């Protein structure tokens, strides 16, 4: 990955690890169990609000299942983080993270992924959309798009 400091100076950084769908599922499970534990404590401790808490527990269980289900299918809604701006360029595009004042230069494929994120598509849709637009016989586009999205998440340039 290449970044640029606040003065527009580009420099190299290493690319991050590649995300697999299994990693998404594991994180969803962790989130799922965390919510149950938290609400379980509330049910034990609060008498007068017990019914409300039980309902909240049920709601959270359902909500967590939905998050888990979507994450397992790779359909996590995504958008650029609050302080991230995207601009198209001839070479692809740039992402500017204005809090750290770093700029990331994107090649055309990466820029296409960011355009999809800006359009409000989730990860699964993005990959589908790109593979519809380009020939991808060996799955290269899918692999690279998934890896790129993982990088964006890791660097907190997107929020789910």
């Amino acid at each position: 990955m290449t970044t640029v400091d606040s003065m527009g100076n580009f420099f190299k950084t290493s690319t991050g690890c590649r995300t697999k769908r299994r990693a998404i599922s594991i994180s969803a499970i962790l989130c799922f169990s965390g919510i149950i534990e938290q609400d379980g404590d509330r049910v034990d401790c609060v008498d007068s609000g017990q019914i409300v808490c039980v309902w909240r527990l049920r709601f959270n269980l359902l909500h967590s299942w939905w998050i888990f289900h979507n994450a397992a299918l790779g359909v996590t809604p995504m958008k650029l983080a609050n302080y991230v701006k995207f601009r198209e360029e001839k070479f692809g595009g740039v992402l500017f993270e204005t809090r750290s004042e770093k700029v990331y230069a994107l090649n055309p494929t990466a820029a296409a992924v960011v355009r999809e994120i800006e359009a409000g598509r989730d990860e699964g849709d993005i990959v589908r959309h790109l593979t519809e637009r380009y020939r991808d016989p060996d799955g290269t586009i899918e692999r690279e798009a998934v890896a790129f999205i993982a990088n964006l998440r890791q660097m907190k340039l997107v929020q789910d």
Partner: protein
Amino acid sequence: MGQADYESQEDILVPAATADDNVTGDLRAPLYIAWQITNECNLACLHCIEESGPGKAFKDELDAKQVFSILEQFVDLEVPYLSFSGGEPMVHTQFFEMVKYVCARNGQLKIETNGHYLTPENCERLKELNVKAVQVSLDGASRETFKRMRVGGDFDKTIEGVRNLRAAGVPIEVNFSPASFNVHEIGAVVDLAYELGAYSFYTGRTMYTGNAVKTWHRLTPSEEQYDKFFGVLHKKTGEYRGRMRVYFHEMGLLEELRYRLRHPAALLIVLPNGLVKLINALPFVCGDLRRQTLGEIWANFQNAWKDPRVTKFVEDLAGNPAKTAALHQWVYL
């Protein structure tokens, strides 16, 4: 619609250039515009590189019509990041209207201020308008050192201003200019910035230009003081890692400028009268927003860095560092 061929790339984020290339030339517009919206200021700081102060507004500062016409160009060319500074930007009669214009069009805007106009009402307004950050200059951890640097300034008022920003929920940055009489407080100032809620802290070497030319003998820290100063900053960077970013430039001006000759920043400096400078530390002007479009100036900017006069000025600095004293004698490229 038929499928296009996809050319596989080894690394999806390989950019248009590498670290050794001039990538700025590939951009269709600047990434950052630092606009000194007025030279007027309520303070007369010893080190001010713009020689701002009470009654120091340029005679030919842009009028409201020109200001908004220029802002419109910034928005149209999708400049992602802008800052308003001065002088003191908050004394500009159109200040809040300008902030509103940029923020309403999804621009990321930083305000660089001395903090004296950060009343609770103004901070609330900045929050409502959704400015990206407010950077406040805090050149001391005590009233005594602060006042020596910021002539006419009020330490307590500045601190109160920063607290008002925090109460309103505006992201805060703190800037510190070193002098012989305040460098010993650097650790305390970094701690104070964190306590006040800053998420970033900036400092570097004080430049020999503007007001500093007249006050250099009592202003400039010795190299020994700078060594200690940067030593503390290295320590504080580690101490606050993950909580507040501590940025500082140890590089001297000459090294910085030599670096910029090879790697121009994607940054334009706009003066209160619409002239556009190559970089603050050089006297060269590469455009005039009253007469040229931002697109034309951006094209000039690329060529201006290759102008032999710029290279010569930088190399002459090696033999004569005092050349920076003439930064306000603009040279048009």
